[in-house]
């Protein structure tokens, strides 16, 4: 079963092996830097074209950038608060819900690892 054996990356699908570039030290940092650069670029772009918005705020350079960043952060904070209010254990509704089922019925699916045959 999963995780009980040692990995053999050579047997991973080729695309998976390529994507494991992400695990090299520094790769994630590169992705983050790329994102920051892209962010800077799309804000800079705002200064180089004429805007035809319906509302005043759309005319502000970088409005969508600010709105996206702030609202996303607020959303995450609000969701944390919501979890405190509505969070419950998985068996809260007992046997009348699927949430307490440990696994999907295994006779209907094919649970299989990459090196199973």
């Amino acid at each position, binding site marked *: 079963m*999963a*995780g009980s054996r040692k990995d053999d*990356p050579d047997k*991973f*699908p080729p*695309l*998976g092996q390529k*994507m*494991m570039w*992400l695990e090299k030290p520094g790769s994630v940092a590169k992705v983050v830097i790329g*994102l920051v650069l892209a*962010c800077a670029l*799309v*804000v800079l*772009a*705002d200064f180089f*074209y004429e805007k*035809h*918005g*319906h*509302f005043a705020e*759309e005319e502000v350079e970088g*409005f*969508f*950038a600010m*709105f*996206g960043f*702030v*609202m*996303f*952060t607020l*959303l*995450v904070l*609000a*969701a*944390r608060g*919501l*979890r405190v209010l*509505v*969070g*419950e*254990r*998985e068996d809260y*509704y007992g*046997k*009348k*819900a*699927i*949430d307490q*089922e440990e*696994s*999907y*019925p295994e006779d*209907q*699916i*094919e*649970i299989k*690892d*990459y*090196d199973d045959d």
Partner: protein
Amino acid sequence: MISVIPTAFLFFAAALVLLALPKKGILRPLLLLATPIIAAAWVWNSGLGNFAQIEFFGLELEFMRLDRLSRVFVMVFCLAAFLGNLYAWHVRDTVQQVAALLYAGSAIGAVLAGDMITLFFYWEGTAIASVFLIWARGTEGAYWTGMRYLIIQIGSGVILLAGVVLWYHDTGSIAFERMTLGSLATWLIFLSFGIKCAFPLLHNWLQDSYPAATVTGTVILSAFTTKLAVYALARGFAGTEILIYIGTVMTLFPIFFAEIENDLRRVLAYSLNNQLGFMVVGIGIGTEMALNGTASHAFAHILYKALLFMSVGAVLFRTGTSKASELGGLYRTMPLTATFCLVGAASISAFPLFSGFVTKSLILDQAAGAHYELVWLALVFASAGVLSHSGIKIPFFTFFAHDSGKRPAEAPTHMLWAMGITAFLCIFIGVFPDTLYAILPYDVDYAPYTVGHVVGQLQLLLFALLAFVVVYRTGIHPPEVRQINLDFDWTYRKAAPSVIRVVAAFVAHVYGGILTFLTNRVNNTMNRLYRSHGPEGRMARNWPTGAMVLSIALLLGATLLVNFAG
């Protein structure tokens, strides 16, 4: 008279043929794939018009109203049925195969219904056929979830019928045309559509049931019921202003729940609810372009939502779980599924060059053009929210994030094909929006790819991504933990039963008290009577017979005296 066989009947006939085919082998899956293709070709080539009308007890039933609004929905339903059945190629369960055909057929029949009696029959048809996709999971939890689903869906149909009967009484017509909210009849019909469309507070059946269906069943479920309701609203209530506000609330509240939900298929159900909100706003605005926005968004949404359900379903198929807390790092051994999931995520988040971008911007543009500023701001916020749960959470916590140690095999080939074709369509629509615009209900005069649109949308999405990186790295992002979140369904799954239990206990107590009191009274009376009149009682003492003669003589003597005296 019927001049054309209604498209829905093709699906019902296929369901009958399917029963005659051997359970093993490829004939059944082939039939499941061929049916929607034939139906789509049939509808596409039959031209627009009103076919298949019949008289029924003096009512004019219309089985085939094919205009540009119904056609785009029929086409995407056929496409969804094809992709869903391809994804379910491995399923050998007759119940699910038949249910899939009857369900798709009913949904298509409902869209083509020109009158509300026909609509009602197909409306209930979708409810009854689809519940088997939930029950097919075969667990006790799925059974009860299916019952809850069925009660609500059938209830929606009953309310629809009540509304139609009143409408017929008021107007003398059963034609399904645009209505104005006002009378009880129209409110009932509106409520019935609202239940199926998962309006706020009427929405919980969606998040309750879709995660409980089978791996393939959820993919099929995600396409039809709610989009049928969107179609019905667009047909019956376009331009109804209250829909703008209902839709806005619909885009907002699910994003908070989706953020903290652990079961990824339920995250997608919340996300589905949020996407319906955008469509409902478009219907509320009601201009030709807004309705185009709704129809095109429904089309694109069915595809990318199916794609996301397919990718999470493939993970469930290989690991047995769809809980974010148990997953992570699967991209190593399921790279294709991960890639397709990312395409779905980019499409629903409306990245430029993906399908969501060219359809959602139609609706936002119309909201802004009609100067609903707060609504527009809410929709932009909701768009960032979509990125959060469907764009980031689904792919990131399944395939990346912390390594769960799970190394599942890649999804089966037919699932990869289904996902691959769907992913291709998501990109194709994004790159060539005119192909989709060409089949919309009204002529489209809109250019999604302006510098302003693209830059604005990229700013929103990239900075939201940046915010995610910040909150994730700083540990502010809510961790994935094994728990559920109570939603409004708590009221009828927990609170109402508890109240009923308390009330029942109280009533039983009072009833018991009164009963005991009365029984005691009766018993006491009987005891007293027994004591006085019973065998040992004073009134039953054994007096000599002479005593009676004596008393009669006394009585007669008294009568004599009274007579003499009188």
